[in-house]
Structures are given as structure tokens and as C-alpha cells.
């Protein structure tokens, strides 16, 4: 409790000073002396306890945001300096905490899972009035966007194309603008792909003695394929323009035309191979930096504050690549008209476009549904390899398809979306259907053996499919269907989520708890310290909850108290995601007695023991949430009804759609988005519309020159 009071106390202090940025002048006078006095002895040049060193921290907090966050958390929570050392002056400690918080807030951490380093109160604690801007930036195309790019220039084909781009393998959002650049290996593949595409674009066949275009080739390009005729300059220009439109959805500037035609001329002159030179020119357009990257520099007029709005072209591309994967000019006209009338009109045009796109089933809004996958991460279920169970079917991809369908249903209804996602009683069960050719039965579920309805008269025996995982004995023909009462609610109790957050043979309360801590409560948990091998004892006669008590040792519990009790209620389900009321453990005595006449052991014997599903919410920062919960449904309902969890959801949506973590300056955009969501009765569309018309989305500030401070 002492810790909680200190925590809230420091927050009030911090919130009060949130309006101003951290003063660099305070670093040498207040912060550095504190670190030197209390920390450097164990975390300095001589000794780096816990592999942690902070004598080299500077006022440039952004460079070491994560280390600064550790300092802040440890001092704030009174965990450091350790009890055996001299206790620091509390006022000075609070000043360090406040300074670090404000400083971290102005330059957010760059990795996707570090977004919560900015305390929630600093973003939502006081109403924000000043809009912000994102840094001018480029953002490498995501793998699906590259695929769409190829389809666009390759006449909807993909054969022979390898995506050169990959995303971080870590959990959480993976496509942040800051994370990716192009290296040599990717560039080699891009070159290869460009050659393949241009070969198809310029494909010719001889008809009536004349080379003519083939199916899929581009007329303007085919005209350049005659080896012994120097093409007219106008034809080269037309070809450059055509390729620019295909590749970057805009016309080339006169300067660009000049340079690309120049590339042709140089090649034709050096080699005498005109078609080859023309192909080189066409390949070059496909490899342009602004084809491979989203360009969001901010080329609109500058405001007094120095920030600039994105140009209509930039907005158009940013919006289309945020909602979907295609770089198409979907609302150029509306935007150009609006841009003449000023920024409010532009914002209205963007809002209109987003609204229309989100309601149009034909519009490319693929990325919107992707948010839910990356937020919950139930889609990773197939990555967890499990043994084939004997009496039911474990089909991870089917579980994912079921949850996808459930999410789509909730998003389509667009009411109270976040709460519904967490607490809906509805579920889809083995939803993917097929026609069974063998028996001529239509619309039978994919993963049942044999497919229902069962023809007992023909001697068919139901071997069970995916249904038992959801708690059904038969396949429900009308879906969605209500899960059996008091068993599971919402996405976090969908088998797909439970499997995605499990291990090969067991449940995984620690990482499930971490998920709840980070993605619902907006808290942080440090990464596993280097050198610590996290291992739950392999003792099959004890329940997992019992075995997990290893983390109660003081040095482990410092972090595990933030996770374990939030994950343990999910012990309500086994590691395949089946609801259970008892837990299976090894019966040591019975196993020892299970011998044949010669005394040879015949194998293990299991028994059922009482299942405990309680948990505890602590350090949430929300007094009404604190306290014991009796089972996962109780816990999730409680959290789902809180403002905090909803706002944390908004923060995550911000990160996904803007491709970066929020900073303190984004407070207004976040608060506006939350307000729009609440006012609309929980409409996810309203939330997305608000984010995409926010200052954070539409405005840019120039980044500093190399080496300069921000």
C-alpha cells in the first residue's frame, strides 16, 4: 500500500508538470547528482549489477528511453536503491521521477512493445488542447503492401515474385515506420522482381511479321521493343509517365522525365541494345525510393508553429495505405477541391473518405481487421505446436478462422466494440464449411470427423471434431451461438487466443498475465533479465498454479507480481483451450502401484484435483479495479467496463494506424479519438475516423539535422 501511495503521489506531481517538457537544465543540477549519489556505485563503470549501467545516461533521454524508464520505475516504486543502502531524499526522488517521465514522454520509445513507457495519466489525466504533428518520415511498405504494389504493376500477377520484406518476429504490432530499412539482400530481390515484371510488361510476340504486345504487356512499353529503330523521344516520355502512374500513382515531374529518359539514352548508346536500355529505364521506376517507401514528409504550407500539413497527394497515399494495402488515388478530386478551401475542409474530406471506405465492402480496408489480430494475437495459434489429442481435433487454423469471424461480426455491428470483444457470450464454432464430395452433403464443417449430421443408421460413429474444444457435443448449425453458460466470454477466452498464448504442453499464465497488464491496463513489465532461465519445475504431480509459485521468490516477484495473478484466472481452460472444472495431475502413488506381476511399471496414472481460478488485480492505477477476482469472466468483465482499458485500447489503435508509439504531444489526438468512440456508442469506425483526421496523422514537423537534438 505504501508503494501505491507513493505511486499516486508522484503521478499527481508529474501530471501537474506535464504541460511543459522536461527541462534539460535540471539534468546536471538535480538528476545527475541523484544518480551519482545513489545508483552509480552498483550500476557504473566498476560494477554493472543486473547488467545495468547508468553512469553514461545523458539528458538526451530518447536515446536510452528504456533505461530511463527502468530508472523511473525503480525509484518511483521504491525498489531502488535497495533497503540496505542509504534512503534517498523523497522530494529529490520525486523530482527525478517527474523529470524522467516528462523526458521519456517527449520522445517515445521506438519499439512496438515499449509504447506503455509513457504513464497513462500523462496522456489522459488532464484535457489536452494543443494539437501535435508526427515527425516527417518515410515508412517502408509492409509485405502485403508490396504485394499489392506488384499486382498493380504486374497486371494482377504474382508468379515468380518473392517478397523481399519481412517484419520483426516479436509479438505485438510489427509494422512501425521506424523499424525498417532496405538492405542489400532485399535490394537484390527487388532488382530481380523488377526485371521479371518489366519482362512481362514488355512481352512481345511476332504477328504478321511485326512484334506486337502480348497478353499482360503495356502498349506504351511494347513500342520501345524494336531493336533497330530509335524510338521518338515523345514515346520514351509517355512510357516513363505510364510507369510512374503504375508504380507511384502520380505523374513524373519534368526533371524526373529528363533523368529517366537520360538513363535510356546512356544505356542505348553504351550497349547498342535499345530494348535492353528501355527495360532498364522501366525497372528503375519500379525501384524508386518513393515506390518502396511511404513518403510522409509534409509538403503542405508551413504554419506559424513550423509544422506542415501533408500535401493532398501524401494524404491520399497515407490514408489508402493505412486502411488497406494499395497505393491508389481514391479521392484525389475531393481532396484537391478541399485543399483550396483550407485545412478544415481537408479534414472533412478525409473524414468523408474514411467513413465511406469503412462502410463499403468493396473498398480496400484489409489493414483494419489486421489491427485486431495484432492486438489480440490469437492468429498466432498455429505457431504453437501441440500433440494430436486422441478424443477431439486440435485444428489451430480453424480456431483462428472462428475468432476472425467473431471479430468481424462485432466490428460489423459497430456498437460498443471494445466491450463486446472482451465480453461477448457469442462464439463461432468450427465455422468454415465445405461440401463433402464423398457423401454429397453440403455445408458440412471442415474439421469434424465424420461430418454431421451423423447417420447413425449407417453405423457412423462420431469421433468428435473441433466442437468439444468450445464445449459443444454437436455442431451448431446456426451461428454465432452462445457459449455454454458461465464458461467463456470474449476473445480472450476463445480457444485460438488461449492456444496462441500457451506452450507446447502447458498453459502460460505468465505471458497471458503480461498481455492483460500491457494491453488492457496499459502497464509495463521489464523484459526477462539476461541470465535468468525462466523455468517452471517439471513436476507433473503438482498443478501449474502450484508449480508457478517459484516466481514468488523476492527477486522474481518484483516483476512477476505484475503478471502472474492476471494470468492465473485463465487456468479455467486447459492448454488446448477447453473449459475445465478440475485439473489433471500425475497420481504418484497410483503410478507407483501400477505394476505388473513382475513389478515392472505399467505407466503413469493421473488424477483430478480441485481447480483454482482466482486472481488479483494490483498496481493498475485505477482504485476501482484493484482487488481479488474469482474467475477469468469476473476479471475481464470488470476490466472491460473501465475507462482505463478502453483508453489503453485507443492507445493501441493509435500505434497501429500511425505506425509509431504515442508521445505526450499526442495527448489531444488520443483524447479526441477516445471521445469520438464514447460519443458514437463505441463505434470502431468513429475511432479510426478520428485517428485519421487527427493532427498527429495529418501534420508533420521536420526532423532535426543529423546529430542535432530534438
Amino acid at each position: 500500500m505504501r508503494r501505491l501511495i507513493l505511486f499516486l503521489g508522484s503521478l499527481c506531481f508529474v501530471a501537474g508538470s506535464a504541460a511543459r517538457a522536461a527541462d534539460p537544465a535540471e539534468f546536471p543540477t538535480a538528476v545527475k547528482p541523484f544518480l551519482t549519489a545513489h545508483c552509480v556505485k552498483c550500476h557504473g563503470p566498476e560494477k554493472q549489477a543486473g547488467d545495468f549501467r547508468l553512469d553514461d545516461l545523458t539528458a538526451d533521454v530518447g536515446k536510452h528511453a528504456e533505461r530511463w524508464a527502468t530508472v523511473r520505475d525503480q525509484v518511483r516504486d521504491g525498489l531502488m536503491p535497495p533497503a540496505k543502502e542509504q534512503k534517498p531524499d523523497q522530494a529529490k526522488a520525486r523530482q527525478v521521477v517527474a523529470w524522467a517521465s516528462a523526458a521519456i514522454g517527449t520522445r517515445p520509445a521506438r519499439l512496438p512493445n515499449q509504447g506503455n513507457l509513457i504513464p497513462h495519466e500523462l496522456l489522459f489525466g488532464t484535457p489536452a488542447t494543443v494539437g501535435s504533428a508526427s515527425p516527417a518520415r518515410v515508412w517502408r511498405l509492409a509485405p502485403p503492401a508490396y504485394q499489392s504494389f506488384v499486382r498493380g504493376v504486374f497486371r494482377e500477377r504474382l508468379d515468380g515474385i518473392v517478397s523481399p520484406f519481412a517484419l520483426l518476429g516479436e509479438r505485438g504490432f510489427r509494422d512501425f515506420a521506424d523499424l525498417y530499412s532496405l538492405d542489400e539482400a532485399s535490394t537484390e530481390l527487388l532488382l530481380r522482381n523488377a526485371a521479371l515484371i518489366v519482362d512481362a510488361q514488355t512481352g512481345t510476340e511476332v504477328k504478321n511479321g511485326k512484334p506486337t504486345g502480348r497478353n499482360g504487356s503495356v502498349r506504351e512499353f511494347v513500342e520501345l521493343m524494336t531493336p533497330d529503330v530509335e524510338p521518338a523521344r515523345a514515346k520514351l516520355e509517355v512510357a516513363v509517365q505510364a510507369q510512374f502512374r503504375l508504380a507511384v500513382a502520380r505523374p513524373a515531374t519534368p526533371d524526373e522525365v529528363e533523368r529517366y529518359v537520360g538513363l535510356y539514352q546512356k544505356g542505348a548508346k553504351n550497349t547498342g541494345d535499345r530494348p535492353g536500355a528501355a527495360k532498364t529505364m522501366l525497372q528503375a521506376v519500379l525501384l524508386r525510393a518513393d515506390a518502396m517507401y511511404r513518403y510522409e514528409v509534409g509538403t503542405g504550407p508551413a504554419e506559424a508553429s513550423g509544422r506542415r500539413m501533408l500535401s493532398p497527394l501524401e494524404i491520399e497515399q497515407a490514408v489508402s495505405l493505412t486502411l488497406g494495402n494499395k497505393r491508389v488515388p481514391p479521392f484525389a478530386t475531393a481532396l484537391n477541391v478541399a485543399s483550396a478551401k483550407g485545412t478544415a475542409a481537408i479534414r472533412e474530406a478525409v473524414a468523408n473518405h474514411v467513413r465511406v471506405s469503412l462502410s463499403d465492402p468493396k473498398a480496400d480496408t484489409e489493414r483494419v481487421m489486421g489491427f485486431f489480430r495484432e492486438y489480440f494475437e490469437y492468429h498466432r495459434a498455429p505457431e504453437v505446436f501441440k500433440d494430436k489429442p486422441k478424443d477431439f481435433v486440435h485444428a489451430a487454423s480453424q480456431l483462428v478462422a472462428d475468432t476472425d469471424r467473431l471479430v468481424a461480426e462485432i466490428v460489423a455491428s459497430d456498437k460498443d466494440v471494445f466491450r463486446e470483444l472482451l465480453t461477448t457470450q457469442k462464439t463461432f464454432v468450427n465455422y468454415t464449411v465445405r461440401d463433402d464430395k464423398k457423401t454429397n452433403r453440403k455445408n458440412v464443417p471442415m474439421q469434424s470427423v465424420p461430418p454431421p449430421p451423423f447417420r447413425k443408421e449407417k453405423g457412423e460413429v462420431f469421433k468428435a471434431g473441433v466442437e468439444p474444444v468450445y464445449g459443444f457435443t454437436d455442431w451448431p448449425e446456426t451461428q454465432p451461438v452462445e457459449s455454454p453458460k458461465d464458461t467463456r466470454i470474449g476473445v480472450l477466452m476463445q480457444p485460438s487466443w488461449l492456444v496462441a498464448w500457451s506452450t507446447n504442453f502447458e498453459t502460460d499464465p505468465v505471458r497471458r498475465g503480461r498481455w492483460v497488464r500491457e494491453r488492457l491496463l496499459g502497464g509495463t513489465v521489464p523484459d526477462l533479465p539476461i541470465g535468468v532461465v525462466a523455468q517452471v519445475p517439471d513436476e507433473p504431480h503438482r498443478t501449474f498454479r502450484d508449480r508457478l509459485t517459484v516466481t514468488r521468490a523476492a527477486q522474481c516477484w518484483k516483476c512477476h507480481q505484475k503478471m502472474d495473478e492476471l494470468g492465473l484466472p485463465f487456468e479455467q481452460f486447459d492448454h488446448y483451450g477447453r473449459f475445465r472444472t478440475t485439473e489433471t495431475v500425475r497420481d504418484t502413488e497410483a503410478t507407483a502401484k501400477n505394476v505388473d506381476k513382475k513389478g515392472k511399471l505399467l505407466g503413469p496414472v493421473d488424477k483430478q484435483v480441485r481447480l483454482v481460478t482466482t486472481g488479483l488485480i494490483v498496481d493498475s492505477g485505477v482504485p476501482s479495479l484493484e482487488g481479488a477476482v474469482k474467475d477469468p469472466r469476473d476479471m475481464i468483465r470488470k476490466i472491460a467496463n473501465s475507462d482505463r482499458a478502453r483508453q489503453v485500447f485507443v492507445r493501441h489503435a493509435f500505434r497501429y494506424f500511425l505506425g509509431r508509439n504515442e508521445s505526450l504531444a499526442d495527448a489531444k489526438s488520443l483524447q479526441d479519438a477516445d471521445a469520438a468512440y464514447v460519443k458514437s456508442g463505441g463505434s470502431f469506425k468513429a475511432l479510426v475516423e478520428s485517428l485519421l483526421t487527427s493532427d498527429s496523422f495529418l501534420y508533420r514537423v521536420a526532423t532535426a539535422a543529423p546529430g542535432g537534438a530534438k
Partner: protein
Amino acid sequence: MTTQATRRDVLKGVGLGAGATVLSPILGSLAAHAAGDAAAANPKRVVFVLQSNGMNPAHLLPSGVERKSANSDSPTQKFTEHSLDGRTLHKALEPLAPFQKRLALVQGLSNKIALSDHSGELGALGCYPKGKVHAATIDHAVAEALPGVFPHVGVGYSDRGNAYCYSASGPGRAVPIVCSPADAFKTLFGSVAAGSDRASFDHRTNLLDFLSDDVKRSRAALAGEERQKLDGYVEAFEALHARQAKLVAMADAIRKNTPKLNEKLAKEATASLTLEAQFEIAGAALVAGLTRVVTITSGGGGQAFGKYPELGVPDLHHIGHGGSYEGKTAEECFVTIRRTHTTLIAGLAKKLESIKEGDGTMLDNTVIVYLSDSGDSHHPTGKQWPVVLLGNLGGKLKTNGRYIDFPFYGKPGHRTLANLYLTLLHAVGKPREKFGIPDIGLKDFDQTGPLGELLA
């Protein structure tokens, strides 16, 4: 605690994470160059040969060695070894007889994690389940330690165009096996070839030159750290441009070794002719010093086993199910196809043996790793994955005419194909603990570290 990296480190780190195996060799080779041609002092080479449709464990049995079939019971309870001295190789491997003293025939390693009907695809060289590019495959992992102008060369035969299912340079990054000898030839030897190949080499040089300038212009609109994102792209074009220059500088060596392929380059060339061309191209690339790691594949993954009507075996799927052709049994057909491959492998070994290097020959510094992408059969179990090793990689491997058989799947002391790959990584000086994704069926087994039995 994680030590905080600078933004540039992060960018670099991400770049490396995704494409390290190709990127770093080049940096490495530049460094080696600066250090006075370290490669010459340590000129190891690794060649992987991957053949479709399974490798029958019986083909590895020399005269006088018996082994139970895997179906009956576990063939081997404990590690066994026989010298090949005085024994005769199975007819399928007979073409390798001249190199009998350089062979190790390895049985009993499993790779069940890559189990799949017809082809384990990337799992054969990657030791992970098919369907997703989880990580770099062993050829690219090895290439990291053996830099060359081309860090890795992948060539092969498939009746479905380039194969993206065997080799990967990192997570999500399948690297194509070039299945047209003409394309492979153009990439490797185009710099010195006369006529249109020379033109396409020049076009590429122009393109790379233009693009590094073009990206620099795009970069001009940016400042600070955003600029650095495009630096990588600029540097990539510059490095590739530098490779072009290196190829020009190596023109004499390349010209001297340029293979004469004639009709083998024809689009309609048969499977065996295509393979012949690819083996020649790969051998020439090694001899010319263009690369030190080669993957040669025959097959295209899935059911694209390849077609050999010229050998009287038009459909490998048919023989995979015991079908016969022209009075020849399935097994006879299998032997015919295998001999085609072992003959080519022997030809490559012979070529390397003919080139002096240091006190010995190029072959002394090489190992050829020959296996199937489908383990032990057309429909494999993954519980055994026979491998033939030829050469001792500069004395690092114990391949002096041995037949060795590891304890079968699930038996104490059982090891996996990943362990063999870890042995290779150890031998080339890039040791690591783990390779691929561990088999959960072997959770009580040691799937880490190299095979002591094979290290010299």
C-alpha cells in the same frame, strides 16, 4: 535488462536480423580483403546437393553391412560404424567409388520437424516445418562464414521455373534457386561473355548507378534519422555496383573458367542435361572464386519431382508409389536417377580435385553434402534422413571412408539433421548452439551442438 541501442543500431539490427546471412558476408569479405586475403588462408567451400523423391537408406549400405528396415523395428539401438575399406558401394552410389576414402555415409539422423509428404522443402536445409520461412537455411548460415563475391549461389533443375522452396537467407526471405542455366550463366559469367549477355551486365551496372543517385535525391527531402533509413537503400545499390566492378576486375579468372555449355543452355534441354549444365556452372563458379557456397537442387518442392523421360523415367511420383517403367522396377528406376546425380557429384569432385590449392587440391578444402528434400522416401517418416558427405572441409570433418549409423529416432543418443548442420557451422568457424526449430517429439533429447562423431 536490455541495453538500449541507438536508433541506427536498431535499424542496422533489423536489417541484419532480416537479411544478415547475405549482407554480412559482403561486409566480411571486404574486411577479409583488407586483412590481406584471409580467404586464401582458409579457403573452405561447402556444396549442398538436394535431390527430390527421397533417398533410400538402403542405397547407403556398402557390401557386408546390414540394417533393419525402419518399418520393422528401430534399425539401430546404438551408434555403429563401419569402415568403407574393402567394401563395395551400393550400385546407386557406385559413381562415387573413386572418392570412397573421402566419404562418410550417415544414417539415423532425424528431421521430423520438417516432415511432409513428397518434400520437406525449406525444412530439408532449414530444419523447420514447411509452409513458412522461419529462418535462414543451412547453406546461407554457412555462407556467413565463407564470404565471396556472390555469398551464395543456388542453381538447379525444376520443371516449374525457379524454386523458392529450398533456400532462405532469413525469416520470411526465400531465395530462389535459379533453374534456368542460361539465367545462372548470365548472372555469374555475364560480365565477360560476349554479345547480349555483356549488354545485360552493362545495363545492370547502369541501373545500379542510376538508382544510387536517384535514391540520394529522394533522401534529400529528409533530415536526421529518417535519412538513415534511405542510407541503407543507397548503400545496397552501391555495394551491388561495387560487385559489378569486382566482377570486371576478376574478368581474367572468370573468363578462364567460363563453362562452354552450348546445347545445355537450350530452353528445351532435358532434365539430365540441365543438371549437367548447372553442375558445370556451380563448379566453374567455385573454381573461379566467385563463391564458396553452392546449393544445387533437383526438383521444385511439393510434387514437382522433375521428369526424366530421357532416362526412361517420365514420372517420379509413379515410381514413388512402386510403379514400374518399361519392365524396370521402381527400385531400378530410383537407382537410375540416383546414379545420374552421383555421377554429376563425382564429376564436380573430380573437377575440384584437379585444381591445386596450397599443398593439396581444392577438393581438400571442400565438403559436398548430398541428401534428399524428402528424407528417406517418397512418403517419408522424418525419423531418418540419410546424408552422404564427400570431402573433409580442410581436415575439419572425419569423412575418411566411413559408414556411420546413429541410434534411431527416440533411442538414447539419437541425433538430428540439425546436429549435422551444427557440425558444419562448427567446422566453418561459426559455431552456435541451436539450428532450426527443435522437434517437440524429442523434448528429452539433446538437439543442440555438433556431432562429435563427425568432427575431426
